């Protein structure tokens, strides 16, 4: 079966998005799906000339939904790693996030060394998690929470000394309060769209689409609207 043909034939693309990970996937004030991932999904559906159906998914269901044909693609702030790429195929990046350390303004934290002996919160299974796990110096106490709300709450309630967060979330926190500030960036990480292994036609079409959307400036506009920053360059592979 060729997923690309199927999508066109049925006139509908089913996209798996987590609606509980703002600003990527969320609901707006009218409780309609919104966010960066949703914006990209809309553009893709428009250019395919088909209707868009969004399937809300919890993080454990993202990949099974894809591999068991419940969705056609996954746009769900999926960080790209080599091990993950064994389970699914990634398209070219649609956003490169920067993992920031956020901590109370009063805390003297300037480098990974300063995190030794401290409790660092992160949302489980996100790129943030992968990166801090990879980079943290021996002795750093990493605590993994199930979603961003819990991770942020841990910081607010003092249950952790710092958290690792994407730029957008950091912006949002700063908008709310000045008790916490960004300390330093740990690393940059690209995020792509997930496609079933072997779906080469669809994969190729999406890469083409991403290149066109970048050239037309629509990806940048979506980044600006939802993430508050615009990447200078997107890596391609």
């Amino acid at each position: 079966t060729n997923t690309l043909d199927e999508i066109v034939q049925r006139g509908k693309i089913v996209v798996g998005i987590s609606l509980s990970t703002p600003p990527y996937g969320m609901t707006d004030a009218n409780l309609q799906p919104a966010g960066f991932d949703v914006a990209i999904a809309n553009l893709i559906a428009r250019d395919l000339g088909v209707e868009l159906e969004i399937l809300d998914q919890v993080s454990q269901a993202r990949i099974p939904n894809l591999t068991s044909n419940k969705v056609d693609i996954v746009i769900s702030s999926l960080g790209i790693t080599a091990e993950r790429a064994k389970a699914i195929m990634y398209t070219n990046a649609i956003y490169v996030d920067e993992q920031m350390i956020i901590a109370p303004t009063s805390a003297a934290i300037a480098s990974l060394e300063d995190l030794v002996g401290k409790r660092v919160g992160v949302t489980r299974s996100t790129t943030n998690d992968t990166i801090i796990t990879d980079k943290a110096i021996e002795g750093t106490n990493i605590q993994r929470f199930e979603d961003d709300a819990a991770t942020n709450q841990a910081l607010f309630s003092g249950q952790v000394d710092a958290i690792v967060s994407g730029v957008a979330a950091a912006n949002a926190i700063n908008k709310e309060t000045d008790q916490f500030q960004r300390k330093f960036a740990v690393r940059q990480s690209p995020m792509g769209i997930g496609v079933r292994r072997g779906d080469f036609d669809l994969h190729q079409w999406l890469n083409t689409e991403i290149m066109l959307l970048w050239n037309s400036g629509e990806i940048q506009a979506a980044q600006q609207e939802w993430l508050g920053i615009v990447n200078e360059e997107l890596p391609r592979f």
Partner: protein
Amino acid sequence: MFQQFSLNHVYFMLTGLGWTIGLAAIALIGGSIAGSVLTLMRVSANPVLSRIAQVYIFVVQGTPLLVTLFIAYFGSTYLGFTVAPLTAIAVAFSFYAAAFLGDIWRGAIQSVPVGQREGAHALGLSGADTMRHIIIPQAIRIATPPTVGFFVQLIKNTSLASVVGIVELTRTAQIVSNATFKPLEVYLTAALFYFLVCFPITLFSRRLEKRLSV
């Protein structure tokens, strides 16, 4: 970008509550049917059937419901077919509830004194008539409180349905919590909704227990 936790969100959570109640109904009905089958297997004179039921109960009770649901929904692909979310829920919850209800109901049936069965047999009542007119009416009174108690847990467990993409109460709470970054307030609201649904049921069960014990 943070939204204020507003009445709008509460409405949204109410739609989730609607799903929760619907799912609970599916789980209760499916679970009761499957539970009856398992109970009959468990109390049957056939040692093979009873043994199968025993192993089934042990394995399913020992497996987290999330995993059961996950396997029901996604595992079917490995067998070459796909199932709709609601089908998966009906199947997984029925299987899960059957394991617990089978246990509860078997206990109730066996706690009817043997003298009752013998009294019926001595009168010449058939096995089926004995079950229907003598054993089950008495077992129901014994089984009702623990059954109702289990139903409450089942209602709370429908929160796991989010894994198959259903936006029930707990999932709406997650979504709202992540949009507002106010997990405490949001989850407390959700807890209140659950409480309002479940408390009348446990209260009913307590009443029943009291009435039956006198």
